[in-house]
């Protein structure tokens, strides 16, 4: 791994009685797309906002391009671009005007036409911000984050609340950033986003970083197993199901039972027999290869989007 451009050490943050971050540490190499994956309230936004200089950490250190976000001043701000989770522009500001405005504030020369084309906003260049759709606003937010050619790009839940088509468009933009060797830190609670886009993923929960690695490395925790998710007519003790043939893990998640098995056919046969003997019924059954969701469930016993 090349030298770290983002360094986070023992970061802590508290909001009143709530401990949002409990000693989070990680590093991001230049040119890497790094994901912070976790449910709502896990501490993702606190982490990214400390790195953007928007919040002050209670403890630990954060460095981006060698600069402290709180004291790095204009040099820090010019080295980073960010898409915030909740932000806006005035409704009566036109798309091309917003690009010009932020380019001037950063002292950057910008080819507005090229930027508008790149983000599919050419037809909307004279449109007011207030008239844009959610997807167009998000594409504009990303364009504004890149208007000054930053080294590091922070994307806080860039696809949250967007429909699948727009989400795919945002994925394409992030993949383009990877090709341009930009360093990207993105937070998400979408598994497919982390798996598809990120070189490495840190799973974060209740302010703790609970796993870190490439999506492949993380999924190897469940290597060799298949995920069998079933809905039963009556709740069942997961302890009994753990003893079924091939089962390596079994948990109740959101009222459904998730089993991991090294021998799926045998497990399913044994499960059906067990249900018959217990006077229980199988209502639905899904089989899938393990995903980061399974890693999260294994680590926390909960789904990501609970």
């Amino acid at each position, binding site marked *: 791994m090349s030298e770290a451009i983002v360094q986070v050490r023992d970061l802590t943050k508290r909001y009143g009685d709530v401990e949002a971050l409990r000693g989070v540490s990680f590093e991001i190499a230049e040119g890497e797309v790094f994901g912070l994956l976790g449910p709502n309230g896990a501490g993702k936004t606190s982490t990214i906002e400390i790195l*953007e200089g*928007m919040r002050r950490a209670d403890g630990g250190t954060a460095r981006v391009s060698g600069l402290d976000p709180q004291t790095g*001043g*204009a040099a820090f*701000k*010019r080295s*980073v*671009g*960010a898409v*915030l989770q*909740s*932000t*806006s*522009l*005035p409704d*009566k*500001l036109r798309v091309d*005007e917003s690009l010009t*405005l*932020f380019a*001037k*504030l*950063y*002292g950057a020369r910008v080819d507005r036409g090229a930027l508008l084309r790149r983000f599919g906003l050419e037809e909307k260049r004279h449109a007011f911000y207030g008239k844009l759709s959610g997807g167009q606003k998000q594409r504009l937010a990303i364009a*504004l*984050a890149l208007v000054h050619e930053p080294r590091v790009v922070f994307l806080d839940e860039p696809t949250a609340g967007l429909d699948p088509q727009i989400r795919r468009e945002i994925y394409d933009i992030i993949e383009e950033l990877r090709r341009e060797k930009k360093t990207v830190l993105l937070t998400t609670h979408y598994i497919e986003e982390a798996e598809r886009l990120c070189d490495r993923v840190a799973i974060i929960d209740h302010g703790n970083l609970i796993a870190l690695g490439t999506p492949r490395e993380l999924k190897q925790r469940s290597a060799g197993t298949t995920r069998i998710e079933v809905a039963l007519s009556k709740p069942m003790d997961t302890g009994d199901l753990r003893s079924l043939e091939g089962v390596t893990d079994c948990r109740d998640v959101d009222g459904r039972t998730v089993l991991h098995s090294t021998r799926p056919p045998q497990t399913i046969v044994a499960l059906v027999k067990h249900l018959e003997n217990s006077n229980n019924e199988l209502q639905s059954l899904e089989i899938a290869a393990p995903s980061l969701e399974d890693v999260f469930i294994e680590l926390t016993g909960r789904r990501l989007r609970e």
Partner: protein
Amino acid sequence: MSHAWTLTLFRLRLAMRNRAFLIFGIIIPLAFLFLFCAVFARGGGPAVAYVLASVLAMSVMGSFWGLSQQLVMFRESGILRRFRLAPLGPGTMLISSIFSNLILMVPGIAAEIAVARWMLHMDRVGNLLSVFVLSGLGAVTFATLGLVVASVANSMMETQVINQLLWLSFILLSGVAIPLPSLPGWLQEVALFLPATYLVTGLERALILKVPLSQLGAELASLGGSALLAFFVCQQIFRWEPEEKVPRQAKLWVAAALIPFLLLGVWESSRGGRLAEARSILRNTFNERPAQRDASPPR
């Protein structure tokens, strides 16, 4: 400074696209001017200048509302957060608000003077340099006070409550709605502690007595001092985020900002010249009026 100018142009552009600017900045003050003149200064003469001073002061003090609400709206809707990412500080944001407000106020002030002179038959134009400098400085002062309110208030609702309280006290006690000499004696003394009073009496002196800038020292010092102090205070307590709370120490800054008004009020109260001059202007203005005009003062 170039960032402040960039943001000023951005704000001007937004204001020109907002119908509220035309309505509150030009149409409503002109409507008030016509209405007050129709009631108190029929037939023109010096009373028009007296009414104009009140309407100009009201327009200038209007900066107070617009800027405080805009800053809170920008903060609550997350617009300030977006600007926070750019390499600029609170001072730049605040200066651009004040500059753009000052520029936007000029056409309204010019229109009010022109209408008073050519449509309402004002018999004098006063010292225009003094009028424009006082109006400009007043706009800066009240804009800055509005920004202090916006920095202290935690929501739009809270901003409107504080604005109403301050606005009413400025309008009712400074001589805009009721001539200063018509207030009970003790209220006249209270009025001397308000920056608005110095704007109104200064505009009356400039418009009616043609007082040059060199003789408006107290007014300029009062408004300029208030503007500087209020700017310093709102820089200290500026908040980018809606959830950030005003630190207790910052509230002390707001309290400290009131000290010069107290000192000026005490000084003017002990001197007594301002109130005497306000009485003299009112008396002379309405005594000079032609016979066919109503003799009752504007209220």
